[in-house]
């Protein structure tokens, strides 16, 4: 999962449009992207579809990526998040999906991961355990669930202005923990 080549080199590689650069991108980022998609749609079949849509969109629109606006992963994950939210909100998916009892603090996927614990998630478990619950909740809602500020304020029953500062403090703690 670790990146082997620096970001600027990856950008150059992707601009060549060579299949090898797709392979590299997929090998290094698909799991992180799939993890986010699965947490939003909470359905493996739908998540696979969204992952495919995401990679096709990333690949075809790569010329639109502007490195001055941020890291390549941020750009990719935003595409995937938007497509996953679109999928979740689509009429067809809503009719089709089972009525899950959504727990917003810890997703269905993470509960599943916690019961079927695997060694590669040791880092995650440690991170989750070390984070203040109110921070991991807001991070999960906004980053992994794609909630807007208003949606988050409503969900957590907190003032709109608090969303920003709590999110900032959550990420400050995340930065400390992921140093």
């Amino acid at each position, binding site marked *: 999962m670790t990146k082997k080549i620096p970001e600027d080199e990856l950008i150059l590689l992707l601009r060549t*449009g060579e299949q090898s650069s797709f392979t590299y991108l997929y090998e290094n980022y698909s799991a992180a992207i*799939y993890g986010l998609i699965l947490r939003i749609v909470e359905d493996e079949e739908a998540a696979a579809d969204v992952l*495919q849509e995401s990679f096709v969109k990333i690949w075809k629109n790569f010329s639109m990526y502007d490195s001055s606006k941020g890291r390549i992963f*941020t750009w990719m994950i935003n595409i995937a998040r938007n497509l996953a939210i679109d999928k979740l909100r689509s009429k067809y998916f809503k009719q089709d999906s089972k009525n899950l009892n959504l727990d917003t603090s810890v997703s269905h996927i993470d509960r599943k991961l916690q019961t079927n614990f695997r060694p590669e998630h040791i880092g995650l478990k440690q991170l989750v355990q070390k984070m203040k619950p109110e921070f991991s909740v807001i991070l999960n809602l906004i980053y992994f669930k794609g909630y807007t500020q208003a949606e988050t304020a409503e969900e957590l029953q907190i003032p709109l202005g608090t969303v*920003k*500062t709590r999110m900032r403090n959550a990420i400050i703690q995340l930065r400390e923990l992921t140093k």
Partner: protein
Amino acid sequence: MEAKEFIESGILELYASGALDKNERDEVELMAKKFPEVAAELNAIQLSLEKHSMLHAITPPTEIKEKIQKELFGNLKSEAISVNHNNTRFYQYAVAASVVLLMLSSFAAFYFAGKLNSAENQLSLLQTQYDTLNKNMNLVIANQSHLTDEMNMINGMHTMKVKLSGTEKHPGMEVLVYYDMETKNIMLDSGNLPQLPDSLRYQLWAMMDDKIIDAGTFNSKLGLIKLRPASEADVFAITIEKQGGSATPNYDEVVANGKISI
């Protein structure tokens, strides 16, 4: 101050989480361009969220990769073609590299062939020099053994040294004849005899009482000349004869003569 407030507002965290609308995103991008510290903070936030995502990674089912590749690059057959096509640049580099390599090896081949050639030339030159030296050494050895033989002969216990002097017609001529009384061998030092034209030769005669023995012809030259042995000798005489010599001496052209003095 403006940048610091902006950073502390928490808007960058929401931007990095994709939770802002278009107007707010434009504002963040403008601020990041204007203030390097804003850009740096945004990058740090994005990096931490990236790590966060990596920790939350879930490996997708393997068949999805193939499905995506099929959609992006076509089926396997055309994928092979597209690989070739996409790798054109690689092959261009490979061809360019090969050409450079070929040129370098050709140059090296010529260079070393030249070196080899010159080494071979030098070797053949040395071989020639060696052959010449060898030949010369053999000559020296032969000469030396020849000289040893001559020395042994003229210094032999039974060798008589006979001085032949010029006649009235050839005054001042001096020739030495060495005659081994035991072996009957004759050696001659042509002394100050002048060189004869090719059509003529000096001829040595050994005489004993009324017997005249032909001891062979010679021309003037440095060093000792080995002539024919003479069974008997009391007097030696030199005449000038035609090339090839004569059966009997030409008494009109006696150059020098001398008697063995015991």
